[in-house]
């Protein structure tokens, strides 16, 4: 019987191994590492093709090889401006992202639970939603006194609509039987909201956060390129890439791109960890 199977599984002794030996034994990890190495090798060969064989391969022949990028990176990481760009971009992403959560989650929940609120605010919301965040850049430069605020505003818009749509969808999709069961047990309106709708919407809140985080990074970089980096010392990673491109250093452009990849990964991991922390029931499998 399934019950039996589960019991024996629960009481199975856990083998204790060090993290390293676990990682080496983990086929998935080894496979992923090998894939990255092979990818870098192809890139290196492709980029150096012209030097060895006299003609360039399309696309890949035009970009610097990873060894040159690594060389550029070792130089770049010693510069304060590069790290300040990290800080700038992070700050902007965080401001836009957090404001989007702070406004978007309550707004989405209000849309979900109150039909009058939904009737009034959903139509204008739906008209504004399809406008790409970057289309807001000129208007936002006019709205806000500083470049910095304009960038933050556009970043906020990038995440806001996604957050609201996810929260609204998640809250509306809650199984009515949970609400009914709670009502039978004497739940008040506030209980229904705090004990059923809120936890029931959490998965969608975190989905919205994960997608919104990706969008804020996209938007922040584009906004930095367009606005010329704002007034901050570093200018942001987007500005760093644009500046490197203008300066003719393709190696640095690639360093900037990889930096963004790492930054985005760190942020997504943080959102995932928070999600696991707040939704223990989702971390079972």
């Amino acid at each position, binding site marked *: 019987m399934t019950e039996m199977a589960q019991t024996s599984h629960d009481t199975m002794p856990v083998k204790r191994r060090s993290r390293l030996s676990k990682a080496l034994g983990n086929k998935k990890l080894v496979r992923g590492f090998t894939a990255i190495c092979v990818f870098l090798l192809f890139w290196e060969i492709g980029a150096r093709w012209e030097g060895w064989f006299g003609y360039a391969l399309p696309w890949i022949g035009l970009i610097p090889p990873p060894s040159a990028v690594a060389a550029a990176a070792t130089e770049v990481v010693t510069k304060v401006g590069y790290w300040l760009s990290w800080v700038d971009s992070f700050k902007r992403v965080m401001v836009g992202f957090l404001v989007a959560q702070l406004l978007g989650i309550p707004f989405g929940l209000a849309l979900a639970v109150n039909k009058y609120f939904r009737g009034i605010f959903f139509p204008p919301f739906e008209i504004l939603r399809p406008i790409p965040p970057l289309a807001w850049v000129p208007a936002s430069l006019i709205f806000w006194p500083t470049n910095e605020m304009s960038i933050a505003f556009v970043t906020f818009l990038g995440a806001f609509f996604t957050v609201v749509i996810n929260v609204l969808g998640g809250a509306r999709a809650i199984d009515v039987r949970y609400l009914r069961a709670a009502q039978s047990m004497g739940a008040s309106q506030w209980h229904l909201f705090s004990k*059923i709708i809120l936890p029931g919407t959490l998965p969608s809140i975190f989905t919205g956060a994960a997608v919104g985080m990706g969008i804020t990074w996209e938007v922040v970089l584009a906004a930095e390129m367009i606005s010329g980096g704002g007034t901050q010392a570093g200018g942001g990673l987007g500005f760093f890439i644009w500046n490197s491109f203008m300066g003719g250093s393709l190696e640095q452009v690639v360093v900037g791109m990889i930096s963004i990849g790492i930054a985005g990964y760190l942020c997504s991991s943080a959102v995932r960890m928070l999600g696991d922390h707040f939704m223990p029931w989702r971390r079972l499998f």
Partner: protein
Amino acid sequence: MATAKKKPAAKKRPAPETAKTAKAGIRSDQSRLELKNVSKGYGDEWDFEQVLGNLSLELEPGKLTVVVGPSGCGKSTLVNLIAGFEKPDTGEIVLDGSKVTGPGKDRMVVFQETALMPWQTTYQNIVFGPKLRGDLTGQALHDEAVRLIEKVGLAEFRDKYPLQLSGGMQRRAELARALINDPRIMIMDEPFRGLDAMSRELMQEFFLKIFEENRRTQVFVTSEIEEAIFLADRLVILSNKPAEVRKIIDIDLPRPRDFTMMSSPEAYRYKREAMEILHEEAMKSFVDQAGASGFMEAYSKANA
């Protein structure tokens, strides 16, 4: 199957009476629920569908009333009305002399599939109701929760989430979640639907054991005739839409029951009688595909 452990020390509730003493008379804690000329329909005037038409039914105190009918005939609507999730268009529902106006802890529903909150552990799910209302708190609540968890055989799974439980365990947890509220009426809405045949049989036996212990008034909705006869004191057969009570059969099999009784000539007679009526009802509106397929579903399962 984990067996229910009896704890001699637990004396919070009136002591469970044996089936014999309960049969002798109606206890004061056994409630009566009446549906008086209840009708209910859905839709607007252009597209109105009458689901229940002038349905009168009594849930007798201390009896297990099983409601069967072709699927789509309005069984779920009946559950929603008794539970108070919806209001009848006409007629009234009366529990022990007072009119039902909305959901309340005196009528607990065990839902189809499972309606345990996925974000709460077994224990949290079970203490949910009393904790909200604050009518059972602290150590008393904890003790009662633990007693019920042991009773339904989930002691080891106290701190597991519903997704970690098997189908049968989920149903038992839900049974405990309903029982802790000490309802006057238990409403079972096809609670064992979706379980495999083996778990289903075990759950039926387990459910009967709990019922026979203290004979709380129950209504049990199902589309399986075999299950209905095995469980019921009174078998209520609904007609096709708009549903009315077509026939009530008193099932006079001895209690406590076990599955061997199902092969007795008596049980067979009940089954034939019920099948004939259901067949008639399904044939009445054979063009109505939902009704017909519902009948076929029930028919094939009963003969499996």
